[in-house]
């Protein structure tokens, strides 16, 4: 059983730098948990505290039913895949995979058999005699995974393992990791700064910023109901459109900002937000371009094939982006063309103008 509980973990480094400022989290057994956030947000430090490479300043790490805070990394029954894989360059692939068993003095016959079995699983049997430097990026990735999983760890920690791969391989490896998780059914804790990775693989996502967890939830929860402006703008491509303005207390309420004055249906506006300064967030797919609404002018079009992104200027401080389907509606916008836009009420998110929390 490998449920992981983090109890108010704090890590302050020597120079008074607070890397993790109180993280509490309950990761279920067999769950695929992804820590995501910008660099420096404390996600890797948190991972290192789970694995034992960093000692928390305060707080506890519980794996299964053991408090492991003071245990050596090797005593925690976990496996870890490092950002640059950390394959031992001077050892053959076989020795890399066997290392964890060797240091535990597994008998040679047993060791040999297990290495070959795991190599078969990862389809790297042909690489066993090679050095890591002779392997391709994807192969090295699988070697690292094989090395980590050979000792059947309760918990698998992965620290941005895909960051060094090219885009195509990265997408392939996502699927592979997901499949691996289903096969092993052990608890995965995965750190990335890539929100797409988090969205595609995670059972749950913990979004971190400035040493704190901003939101925990399933990928869709995070996408649809971001807890605050940070989460909202961190997820989604292109970035969510944000417009600061005011919601009038009229009925129906109107959203008024520089050069924008749009009527919103009552159900789209949380009661708490009426009559206040707010920030309205609308994802690009929820911006409707048509005959009605506020005026804008097309600045740039980005055809993606099935969809096209329309960047347009409405007179406010930044441009807005709308996503239109390639096979529906008018897609032949031209740069400089005058347009009108409106919000799809079900996609309107309202945030507190002051602290950025999502108002519901």
């Amino acid at each position: 059983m490998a449920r992981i509980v983090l109890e108010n973990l704090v890590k302050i480094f020597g120079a008074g730098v607070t890397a993790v400022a109180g993280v509490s989290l309950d990761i279920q057994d067999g769950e695929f948990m992804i820590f995501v956030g910008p660099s420096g947000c404390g996600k890797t430090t948190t991972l290192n505290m789970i694995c034992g490479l960093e000692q928390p300043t305060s707080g506890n790490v519980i794996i299964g039913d053991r408090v492991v805070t003071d245990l050596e990394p090797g005593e925690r029954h976990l496996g870890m895949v490092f950002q640059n894989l950390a394959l031992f360059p001077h050892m053959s692939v076989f020795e890399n995979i066997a290392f964890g068993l060797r240091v535990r003095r597994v008998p040679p016959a047993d060791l040999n058999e297990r290495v070959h079995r795991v190599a078969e699983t990862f389809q790297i049997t042909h690489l066993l005699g090679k050095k890591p430097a002779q392997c391709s990026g994807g192969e090295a990735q699988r070697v690292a995974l094989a090395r980590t999983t050979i000792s059947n760890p309760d918990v698998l920690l992965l620290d941005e393992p895909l960051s060094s791969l090219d885009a195509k391989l990265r997408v392939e490896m996502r699927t592979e990791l997901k499949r691996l998780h289903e096969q092993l059914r052990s608890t995965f804790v995965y750190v990335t700064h890539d929100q797409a990775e988090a969205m595609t693989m995670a059972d749950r996502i913990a979004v971190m910023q400035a040493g704190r967890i901003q939101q925990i939830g399933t990928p869709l929860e995070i996408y649809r109901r971001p807890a605050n402006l940070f989460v909202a703008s961190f997820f989604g491509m292109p970035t969510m459109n944000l417009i600061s303005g005011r919601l009038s207390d009229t009925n129906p309420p109107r959203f008024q900002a520089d050069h924008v004055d749009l009527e919103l249906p009552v159900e789209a506006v949380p009661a708490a937000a009426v009559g206040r300064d707010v920030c309205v967030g609308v994802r690009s797919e929820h911006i409707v371009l048509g005959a009605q609404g506020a005026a804008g002018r097309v600045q740039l079009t980005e055809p993606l094939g099935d969809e096209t992104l329309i960047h347009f200027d409405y007179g406010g401080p930044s441009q807005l982006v709308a996503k239109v389907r390639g096979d529906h509606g008018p897609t032949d916008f031209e740069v400089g063309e005058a347009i009108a836009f409106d919000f799809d009420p079900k996609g309107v998110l309202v945030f507190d103008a002051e602290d950025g929390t999502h108002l519901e």
Partner: protein
Amino acid sequence: MKLVLAEMEATPKRPAGLAAWLAQERIFRLVPFVMVEGMFLLLLALPFALTIYISLLRWRANRPFEQAYFQGFVNYARVIAEPEFWWSLGRTFYFAAAAVTLELVLGFFLAMLVHQAFRGRRLYITIFLIPMMVVPVVVGYNFSMIYVDSGPLNQILAPILTPFGVTARIRWLSHPLAAQWAIILADVWQWTSLTFLIFLSGFAALPPELINAARVMGASRWQIFRRIQLPLLKPAIVIAVVIRTMEALKLFDQAVLLTFGGPGDSTQTIAFFLWRQVWQFNKYGFGAAASVLLLLLLSSLIYGGIYLLVRERALLQQPEGRG
């Protein structure tokens, strides 16, 4: 044909002379090579050829060079028949082996200790690096004071040796065996700094992930050292061995300054032997032959060293894990 001529006349007249000739792309491209080759010839090939030429002459500098004459391989035969040459060579290998071994072991452990983060680390690094920067002459002078019969070294050793019934009056500079170790120790004192520096940078270059990975896999400190750090430091070790061995085979300063090759010839190194043959005894032809012979003898060693260096450099430059 006419057309070609017309074209040629049409091209603007180019400036004549060397500058113009040099300015041509195909010539200009060669200039760096000519310079490199020229430097090579001037700095390496020419003196080397001259040395070989002199080695074939019967020439002692106590006669004018004009009276020197070609005598074939006589000097080589004399060098080979000279027991002192072989003795000095043997001495040199013995010093080099002892000194380099000690320097490697000491430098390695100092670097390992200092590599850990602790307060005052920079200070220690600086202190450990000082000996290397001291001018050898000064080292020689200082050590000749330290090694004096009633000097500080014997005084330090006294409380350690006396309980074992050994009188701590080691004749560091006048006992044949002690003098050899006096020179080895002075060399160790000065050059452990260098191995320390090489190993320190070696330790610093070890990717911490590798050690972390091993830790997570349950390796003990000793296993990490033995199976990860030590093999990964191999390039640094090879560099240290090669550089120090090549240097130690040239051991000269300490032999001159501490013992002047004595007592007897117990601390005569090959470099000192050559120096003495040429600069004290004016045996230029003989000295040249000895140095050519020495080069031939050592060239296999040098070649091996350079080969190892190049190979280990290649390993070092190889991307760690997957880049």
